């Protein structure tokens, strides 16, 4: 490994070290997996998307794809658990999406939320709207997903993220069989 590439890693190491200590963690990854897939064995299957796949997902969902890593786990029954993060208003929201073997949404869980505002996205009533939606559904605020008055931005950004993940399932995960 060349020295210059190690230098590139320095900011990442610094970021890891300075990771916010007080973010409210509602669920661990394992808890979220258990909530969606019960006691099924979960196998980590992270995928690095290539440029063409990122572009295809972007076109299908209308949402910019900013990272090449798809943080995916495969459930024993063939379903998928996807971990993702979006910006709410100015802070990160970490959430997970559970998909069944047909790509239908099983559940949406919020793992970490850092803002004082907009935490309403954790309300079960809001998250329930996504259940059973899949590729072909609009998955858009103002269409088949209703927003929350006090959490407009958080709702929009999580909904956009889910639309991007569902497109990633159709284009990348589904062909894996």
């Amino acid at each position, binding site marked *: 490994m060349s020295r210059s590439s190690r230098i590139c890693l320095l900011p990442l190491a610094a970021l890891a070290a300075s990771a916010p200590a007080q*973010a409210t963690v509602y669920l661990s990854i394992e808890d979220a997996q258990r909530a969606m897939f019960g006691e099924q064995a979960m196998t980590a299957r992270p995928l690095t*998307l290539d440029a063409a796949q990122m572009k295809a997902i972007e076109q299908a969902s209308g949402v910019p794809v900013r990272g090449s890593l798809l943080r995916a786990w495969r459930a024993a029954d063939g379903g998928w658990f996807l971990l993702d993060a979006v910006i709410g208003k100015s802070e990160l929201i970490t959430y997970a999406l559970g998909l069944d073997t047909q790509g239908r949404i099983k559940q949406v869980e919020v793992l970490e939320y850092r803002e004082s505002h907009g935490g*309403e996205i*954790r*309300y079960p009533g809001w998250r329930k709207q996504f259940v059973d939606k899949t590729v072909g559904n609009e998955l858009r605020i103002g269409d088949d997903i209703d927003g929350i008055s*006090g959490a407009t931005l958080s709702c929009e950004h999580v909904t956009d993220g889910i639309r991007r993940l569902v497109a990633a399932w159709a284009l990348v995960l589904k062909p894996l069989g």
Partner: protein
Amino acid sequence: MALNLLLPSSRHRVLAACALSLFTTALPAAADSRQEQLEQKVDALAKQLEALQAELRALKAEAAATSAATSAQAPAPTQTPASTAAVAAYVDPSTAPTRQDARAAAEHREAFLSGYGEVNYNHYDHDSSRDEATVRRAVFGIGYRFNDSTSLVSEFETENAVVSADDGGEFEVEQFYIDHRYNEHVASRIGLILIPIGYLNTAHEPTRYFGVERNNIETRIIPSTEREGGISLYGRTGYGLSYDLGLTTSFNLANWDFGSAEGAESPLGSIHGELTNSRAADLAQYVSLNYDGIAGLNFGGSVFTGEVGQNQDVGVSASPRFLLWESHARYVHGPLQLQALYAHGGFSDTAALNLANAGALTPIPKAFYGWYAQGAYRVWRSGDYALTPFVRFERYNTGADYANQPAGFGSADRLTETVLTSGASFYLTPNVVLKADYQHYRRASEDNRFNLGLGLQFY
């Protein structure tokens, strides 16, 4: 790792040698011996350099051998995906930093900017000399994160473009507070804060309401943007109920102008302090509750009250008090948006004051109120473009009851006004909107007008 530690230190050695040689060459000596010494030193340095290069080669070889050994020992991924271009590398997703993390971390920054604004045009039906175009407001917000639970939120607003002695503009600090989160359920704001009453007062970006101009109820009855200095405690429960409690500065009755129409346009708005050397002897309190537990539905209400005498001689011995309360509901389903709000306000113990100013243009109202109902339906969308027509019906009275008016020469209670506003919002993106509407006033028909506006928001 050994390579990691050694490389910088070997570099240091070279640097130290260079520094030493520079230092020694600076010493005064005879020209000949200096030449000799220098040659010797250059030789010595060259040898040192050769030694370092050899050391480096050895270390590189060692590192290569180690990494080869590691990759040979590494277990193969438990499931090797069959022939797919998707899988380029195996990384443990919970530990490895990625471009996505870097991007997200870059956005997880300490200072952040936001803003909103609107440029409006009003054309009056009956008197075009009143026609006006203005930068209604341009607002820029600066936030700063001190740590993960403590931030500054600030907003600076300019109304009507130019602020000077000769122009009608205003420059305001609209919000300036510290937001601190104690835990999942409780957070607080301290400083210049918005009172969470109704919809518009806390959500007044032009992309978030219909109509070029803000609705009458939430400007005349609720004096948006109503803000005070103080402290609030707020938070939410897990199943849809959110609360906000506050202790703030209050209004100042000494500023009531019996001879100005301002108190009839917006009774509370004519005497709010906006934390500009606000009188602070009497404080106000508020409670606000909202329920969002059912997708698409919001309803709630709030009460805001406090004394307004501020220990000044306002002309009455009693302690005059204001009370403002409202309830609101909104239902959003797909392209449909329905919204309604009722607000009621009043001053108590001002009868003697009104009597002393009998016959004045604007007595202090014992009651003022208003309500509206609004419906909107997005009829078209293509990508980010969307077109949403709306209609809003409003009724309000800013002086429904003037206490203690002497028969014959007192002020009559005001009449209730009815306004119908209909128009449309055309969104270029969800955060940039072009608006057009027509407003019909049943009584003040001179205010009937056609409005055009540009509104935007960024964060």
